[in-house]
């Protein structure tokens, strides 16, 4: 279905350096989350659920896994005849030679031929590393109704935190009259979510001009939006209410996982009308052994649990041995918690094997501990 000719472009080039070892071999949008998902499943599923059929994914850094992950577009039903998920890395061209993407706007600017080819009428710009559910079709309706040149999704944030965000100052019709990047004295609490709908014809002009501007940083927030405002273009703020999380740090990734233990959480992954689709793993159901004790946990297929799991999230194929204790912890795919081991307030990275009886993490720690293969080999085994 190509009802509205809106093409989504997901910016997925982020290195996510504050996630340390989790992004050493994997781009941030491919980081695991919530038991069975990867972060980029959220924008991709939102696209599928919003009747968008063509999605470009702009990748750059360490993208082999991410590229082959998103290329299996049938996971999100995005394999319709005219649709698809298209990986768009930087590439060589006849005219311009070869270079990395210089910024968010340049990433789109270098792919105008793709947007032309897909006959885009509107372009939806998304980030590959946010966790939320949003109906972009409604946002497009808003964009069309308000005859805007660009529509920006905004979230109300507490005013005292507003200075950490790009803030939109609007008139009473939610038309944007001013944009301030991390203002010291914010005039409003409407923060940009980095989600934009542009009417493509206009955007193309601005991007072509921006490509040639040597002083530009080629960024939507810093260059394109201000240019639109300078030219008195119509910019609409589209208000979003609901769960939204940018998981930039180990602590915020852990928190976002812990949110799922709350059966009232706003993200509500149980909702059958807005499913988050992901890779179909060939794993068996969960085997809960005879010594298992499970107190408030979020557990997915392929896990084999024979110990205590409390206030924790277990990802695909995790094994928890007899007498092990996993508390306040996120255990990523394929990790093994040995017999009698005790893990508290940690994120255990993929495929890490915690030896029997090892004790790791601290119930009173300020920060969440990231447990990697290195950690395990460094820390001694403490028998308790």
């Amino acid at each position, binding site marked *: 279905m190509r009802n509205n000719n809106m093409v989504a472009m997901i910016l997925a080039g982020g290195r996510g350096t504050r996630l340390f070892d989790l992004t050493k071999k994997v781009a941030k949008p491919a980081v695991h989350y919530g038991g069975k998902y990867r972060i980029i499943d959220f924008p991709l599923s939102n696209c599928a659920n919003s009747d968008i059929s063509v999605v470009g994914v702009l990748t750059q850094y360490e993208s082999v896994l991410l590229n082959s992950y998103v290329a299996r577009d049938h996971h999100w039903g995005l394999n319709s005849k005219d649709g698809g998920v298209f990986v768009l890395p930087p590439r060589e061209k006849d005219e311009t030679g070869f270079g990395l993407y210089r910024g968010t706007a340049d990433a789109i600017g270098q792919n105008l031929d793709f947007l032309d080819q897909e006959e885009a009428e509107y372009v939806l710009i998304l980030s590959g590393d946010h966790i939320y559910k949003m109906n972009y079709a409604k946002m497009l309706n808003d964009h069309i109704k308000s005859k805007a040149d660009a529509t920006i999704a905004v979230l109300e944030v507490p005013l005292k935190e507003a200075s950490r965000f790009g803030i939109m100052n609007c008139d009473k019709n939610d038309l944007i009259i001013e944009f301030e990047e991390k203002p010291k004295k914010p005039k409003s609490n409407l923060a940009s979510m980095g989600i934009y709908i542009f009417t493509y014809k206009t955007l193309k002009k601005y991007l072509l001009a921006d490509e040639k501007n040597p002083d530009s940083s080629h960024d939507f927030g810093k260059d394109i939006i201000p240019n639109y405002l300078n030219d008195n273009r119509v910019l609409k703020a589209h208000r979003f209410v609901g769960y939204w999380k940018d998981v930039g740090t180990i602590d915020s990734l852990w928190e976002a996982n812990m949110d799922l233990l709350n059966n009232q959480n706003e993200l509500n992954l*149980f909702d059958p009308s807005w499913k988050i689709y992901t890779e179909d793993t060939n794993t068996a159901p969960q085997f809960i052994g005879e*010594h298992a*004790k499970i107190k408030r946990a*979020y557990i997915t*297929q392929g896990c*084999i649990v024979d110990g205590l799991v409390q206030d924790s999230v277990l990802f695909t194929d995790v094994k928890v041995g007899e007498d092990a204790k996993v508390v306040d912890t996120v255990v990523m795919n394929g990790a093994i918690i040995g017999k009698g081991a005790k893990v508290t307030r940690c994120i255990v990275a993929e495929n890490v094997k915690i030896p029997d009886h090892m004790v790791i993490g601290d119930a009173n720690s300020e920060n969440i501990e990231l447990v990697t293969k290195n950690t395990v080999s460094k820390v001694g085994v403490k028998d308790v």
Partner: protein
Amino acid sequence: MCNALGIVSFGDTNVDVLGMSNYRPVAAINFLGRYRIIDFLLSNMTNSGISNIQVYIKNKPRSLIDHVKESNFNINSKRGKIHVLYGESQITQEIYNHDISSYMSNMEFIERSNKPYVIVAPSHMVYRIDFNDVLNKHIETGNDITLIYTSTDHAKEEFFMADIVNIDSGNRVTSFVKNRGKYKSRNISLECYVMSKRLFIEMVNKAANTSSLYWFKDIIAESCDDLDIRGYQHKGYVACINSLPAYYRASMELRQYQYAKDLFKQDWPIHTKTNDSCPTLYDNGASVSNSIVANGCQIEGTVINSVIGRNVIIKKGAIVENCVILPNAYIGEDTKINTCVVDREAIVHHVKKLQGTLESPIYVKRRDRI
């Protein structure tokens, strides 16, 4: 690459999972939380490199067609095909509704296959096998038909009404008899036959000409003297799901990892239709042990020795023990159920206590509200 056409046959009149098969063929019955029974055989076939498969069913094709078409059995979508076939003409009497009549009315599709061999197997036998091994052995030996069997010491309790196969010292099949539970140790036929396509077509025609009541297994049994039929022993775990107690017993066995691990191997994925359910939330109050749990469940009650299907909700104070709960069922607050099979979308709410027996577990019907 297994150079054979896969044929999934349907079980004879002795295969009837009471109650459950009113709603779908045995092949389509939900199993182990997230599968349908047929997934195990189809995965055996596709993992063995068989990409052209015909699935024959007797009636009620819809649930099976939807399942098979919407599952991803990992075959090339242009070259491969899983074709669900059934008699389109009305069969006036159930007694004539057998595998031979299905094969006869779809002979055009069998003849069209360009594979020299066929592997015929029913879906109600659940096990893990690489058909390449069987086919290679068959070709090496050069016999007419190779039949897969399992040796059991539990023929008194299990495989009731399945075929006992008698094999001579030369590994040749000499005769078949029904297992009526009289003897402990027996060789049981898995009703899986490997032969050339040419011979298969010949046998089907012969059966049809011999009697309009003949099943394929009847003509096989009759041919023991004329044809060189050899046994191939399968050594792994086998469940024969031909009745409600057998279904229940297999579920109870396989919820234990020491049995299940024989079916679930890393390099032998069991393909099925994904439902895109989220993980399961074990909420405050949950207590779960010795069980299989599928994804998408919300558990606040107690679960012991049970198989819990996808998207099942178990409310506070409920105790589910020795049960098989099928997808989308709802077990209400303070309900205590033991030794029950609760079918899809059933709601157990007002009845606060249900207790079945091993020989006859209580069956709660699909979409029932009790």
